[in-house]
């Protein structure tokens, strides 16, 4: 049974519809990420689950019970806020024990639980520090501790890593995963950073304009995006216009950039249908050429070569004028992945690595 069910939930602020008839089940114990650009409504979904906003229509079930109208203070859900929202007039201990004290838990137990939680977030012994004397990373940990010390059913995290610097963010990502495994509670994480979403989550929900575009594992989201928005938002994509020229069983023949190419037909496309072909930069292969390209290869010219340490990124202008982005990895067999600017190349990919979508 899902721990949270959002059924046909809608929410408007004034005349602006922020959440549009949204349905989402969150499974017990999973790490779910709501991913989307700013303004897509992901934070509002979080606030609806927390009870900090009430929805205009639809129902919210938490642990099987209808809690649509239940105020935030009565829900078994805790939040880590983007700005941390620590209480500045209290020290670390008072911040973390705030929820427990409200629940009238005996002082001794509070002491113990705060101590345990502080150790869990690697802040042991910091009890008496005032908030103003903590670094950004430490404040973040206090905010997490303040939420998890209540042992909630669900932990909501609203872009908690966005204020940290790159190194700290990477460290906190690992720590969050570790924490999730250790606590075993459901994490609902909101971010606009696709890398964060892919590395952290069991499941990713991609949102746009208040509705869900795709739900799936990070691998599904990245490798088989269901529409152009998801493909474009998650990772880099090269998008080509193409037309189906013939279909044969599981495959089809398409005309792409004036070249014929055989690709897989996973969606039952018909002859003469216009399609979009999506290719990830790392799925494309590049070959040098002196004259003509082989069948199924798109001719082009190297415009830019960017050395990145583990990879080399190429920007290639195809002969019809479209710029594409290709990533080449270093490997033992093929040391020669350095190209000259303006060098003539042929670009292709292995059949089946492409994603074909109907023309939108």
């Amino acid at each position, binding site marked *: 049974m899902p721990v949270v069910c959002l059924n046909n939930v809608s929410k408007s602020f004034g005349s602006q519809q922020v959440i549009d008839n949204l349905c989402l089940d969150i499974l017990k114990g999973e790490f779910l990420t709501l991913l989307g650009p700013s303004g897509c409504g992901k934070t509002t979904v979080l606030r609806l689950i927390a009870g*900090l906003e009430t929805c205009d229509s639809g129902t919210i079930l938490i642990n099987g019970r209808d809690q649509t109208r239940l105020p935030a203070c009565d829900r078994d859900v*805790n939040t880590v806020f983007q*700005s941390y929202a620590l209480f*500045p*007039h209290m020290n670390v201990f008072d911040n973390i024990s705030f929820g427990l004290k409200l629940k009238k838990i005996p002082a001794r137990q509070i002491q113990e639980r705060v101590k345990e939680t502080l150790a869990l977030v690697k802040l042991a012994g910091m009890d008496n520090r005032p908030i103003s004397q903590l670094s950004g990373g430490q404040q973040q940990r206090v905010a997490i501790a*303040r939420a998890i010390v209540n042992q909630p059913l669900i932990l909501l995290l609203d872009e908690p890593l966005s204020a940290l610097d790159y190194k700290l963010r990477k460290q906190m990502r690992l720590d969050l995963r570790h924490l999730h495994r250790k606590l075993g509670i459901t994490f609902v994480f909101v971010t606009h950073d696709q890398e964060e979403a892919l590395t952290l989550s069991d499941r990713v929900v991609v949102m746009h304009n208040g509705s869900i575009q795709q739900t799936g594992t990070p691998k599904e989201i990245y490798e088989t995006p269901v529409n152009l928005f998801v493909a474009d938002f998650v990772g880099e994509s090269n998008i080509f216009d193409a037309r189906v020229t013939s279909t044969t069983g599981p495959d089809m023949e398409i005309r792409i950039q004036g070249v014929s190419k055989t690709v897989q037909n996973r969606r039952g496309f018909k002859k003469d249908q216009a399609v979009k072909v999506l290719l990830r930069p790392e799925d494309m292969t590049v070959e040098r050429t002196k004259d003509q390209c082989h069948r199924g290869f798109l001719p082009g010219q190297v415009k830019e070569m960017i050395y990145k340490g583990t990879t080399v990124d190429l920007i290639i202008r195809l002969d019809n004028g479209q710029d594409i982005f290709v990533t080449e990895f270093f490997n033992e067999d093929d040391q020669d992945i350095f190209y000259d600017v303006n060098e003539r190349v042929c670009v292709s990919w292995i059949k089946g690595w492409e994603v074909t979508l109907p023309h939108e």
Partner: protein
Amino acid sequence: MKRWIGISWVSTVFAFLYGPLLVLMVFSFNQARYTSEWQGFSLTWYASLLENQYLLDAFVNSLTVAFVSSLAATAMGTLGAFAIAWYRFAGKKLFFGLVYSVMMSPDIVMGISLLMLFVTAGIHPGFFTLLVAHITFCLPFVIVLVHARIAGFDPAVVDAARDLGAREHEVFLKIVFPMILPAVLAGWLLSFTLSLDDVIISFFVTGPGFEILPLKIYSMVKLGVTPEVNALCTILFVLTLAAVLVAHFLIKEKKK
């Protein structure tokens, strides 16, 4: 060299600020009646103050008005600050602008306009009119001070408190109030001192039946500065200083 310039600069400033006060305080202990010549230490004037029933009455009146008006202004101003900071309503910007304009308007203009208001409304000048006037000119200071404090804290802390299980009254008592307390105290103290030493507005709105200390001193000075006035001013100064120190201490204590 630089250090000496700094020190002499600071001491000049302090001498300029506190020199006159010091002279006044020293002469309040002077035995001489009229001259400004030192004739030996004495507490005569303090003793004679205590016997001056008129002055004592005025002093009690002043304290009463200052206490009641500062409390009322603080309560109303704090609520007003919340209204401006947290709620959306038509004319909010205008309201906030008007608050500033009351703060900036010359005392004499306020005094006369309040007087005209009371006369038009047929209210006899006295304690009530004085109180209303004092609340009016203290209110903007409280609103501005408390508003700055509310605007300065992250509104998400209120959400955080609710999220952790606090009901509305608990959010207010445990989170919001402690956070704005320094500004509320500062507003209250400022109102108290503003009310205590106001002359111009009070001059217009109080009646013959209700005398307050600053006005009493003002009328005494018309006949010449007596050592009695010096003594009275010294007491007032010490009182104000004590109030400032107490408030400072309170604010510091809260921060720990």
